[in-house]
């Protein structure tokens, strides 16, 4: 006897079959980043509990399957935001995950409208809060730590995530320069291969530079990442644009995941380049 409810639900499988397959290596890398973040956060929590410093925001360290630590009880005299953010502090306040990083307001992020085009269709944006786990936004991204003023926004078209943007505000120009240097190193074939060797050894990657330029007080560069499993079963292409602004000590990373050819992917990423920069520098209309 045919189950009519199953008959209704079963065809939804065709929508799933139409999705590009995420390589297992990418999922494992996400799990590895999550583990590292939890270890870092747990260490920070230990220090904070020991000295009675209150947690900032909401802690989510354990995941559904694990134990969820209780928020640290407030100290008798809560510190001011400026003291918590002080670069001279010896306490790792900045390593606490925060759901809504105060230094990264939503206005800094691209909107769905910025992404919407004939090629991508109507794009909508997620809340640019911090996701659980990692803030890495592309396959070669070592900047996975949710510490500090960092936020990630995701963008959907037709039910799929097609793009991601990360905005990180640094405490100093030297810290910003270090972040850019790290991003440049990560976004090379050798740098990314070295990174993936430790997290996804069965993935081969190729990083192709697509352009670089400077603007007043900052700069941008763009690459395309092609990764595939060694058995050829899964492939992934990402267009990555990294920009920075020295005045606001901000680095932003825009990633397009949509399955487009080279010209189209490049065109769609470049299209949002100025909008992303203008939002960070506060010159957006």
């Amino acid at each position, binding site marked *: 006897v045919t*189950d*009519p*409810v*199953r008959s*209704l*639900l*079963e*065809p*939804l*499988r*065709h*929508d*799933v*079959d*139409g*999705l590009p*397959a*995420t390589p*297992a*290596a990418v*999922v*494992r890398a*996400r*799990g*590895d980043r*999550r*583990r590292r973040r939890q270890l870092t956060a747990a260490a920070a929590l230990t220090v904070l509990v020991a000295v009675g410093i209150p947690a900032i925001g909401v802690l989510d360290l354990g*995941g*559904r*399957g694990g134990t969820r630590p209780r928020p640290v009880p407030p100290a008798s005299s809560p510190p001011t935001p400026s003291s918590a953010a002080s670069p001279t502090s010896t306490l790792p306040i900045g390593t606490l995950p925060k759901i*809504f990083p105060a230094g990264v*307001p*939503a206005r800094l992020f691209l909107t*769905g409208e910025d992404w919407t085009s004939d090629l991508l269709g*109507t794009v*909508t*944006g*997620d*809340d*640019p*809060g911090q996701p*659980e*786990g990692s803030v890495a936004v592309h396959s070669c991204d070592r900047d996975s730590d949710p510490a500090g003023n960092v936020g990630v926004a995701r963008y*959907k078209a*037709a*039910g*799929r*995530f097609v793009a991601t943007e990360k905005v990180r505000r640094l405490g100093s120009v030297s810290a910003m320069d270090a972040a850019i240097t790290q991003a440049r190193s990560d976004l090379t074939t050798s740098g990314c291969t070295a990174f993936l060797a430790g997290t996804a*050894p*069965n993935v081969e990657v190729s990083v192709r530079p697509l352009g670089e330029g400077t603007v007043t007080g900052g700069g941008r560069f763009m690459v395309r990442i092609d990764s595939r499993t060694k058995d050829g*079963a899964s492939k992934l292409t990402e267009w990555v644009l990294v920009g920075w602004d020295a005045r606001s000590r901000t680095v932003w990373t825009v990633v397009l995941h949509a399955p487009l050819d080279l010209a189209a992917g490049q065109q769609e990423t470049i299209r949002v380049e100025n909008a992303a920069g203008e939002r960070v520098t506060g010159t957006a209309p």
Partner: protein
Amino acid sequence: VTRPERGTASFDAFYAATVRRTTHTLYAMTGDLGEAQDAVQEAYARAWQRWSTVSGYGDPEAWVRTVARRVAVSRWRKARNAVSAMVRSGPPDAPPEPAVDHVLVVDALRRLPETQRHALVLHHLVGMTVDDVARELGVPVGTVKARLSRGRSALAAVIGPIDLEVSR
């Protein structure tokens, strides 16, 4: 049920064998393909984190499915409750767009209460018995039967009569 061994290769094989089925299940549970995809990836990432333990479970796929369901529910509730998020991001996203011939089904699913939707999917799509659904959801068998009955009635109100007794 896929019974994986330990290690990277076994995880990859387990992932390849089960991810589309799990995504399909979560898609039916959430009515949102993007959310389903993300919740499933998060669940597999968590499975990899503790693979030496999860791989020894009797049904690792059920573990992943349960984690993915909880991740999806948690995110949905956070989104629903986060007034500050609404202020920051404006109105919620427009619903994702399923294939044209699935619009009616997805729309009908979205109209169901979450508890009924989960019971329907686990029982009718995953093929679990009512007893197993009750164990997985942590509710009495009678509650599952009631949710299935109400869920079918609600679906029928949208897509037409459904004549099906609760099976064991």
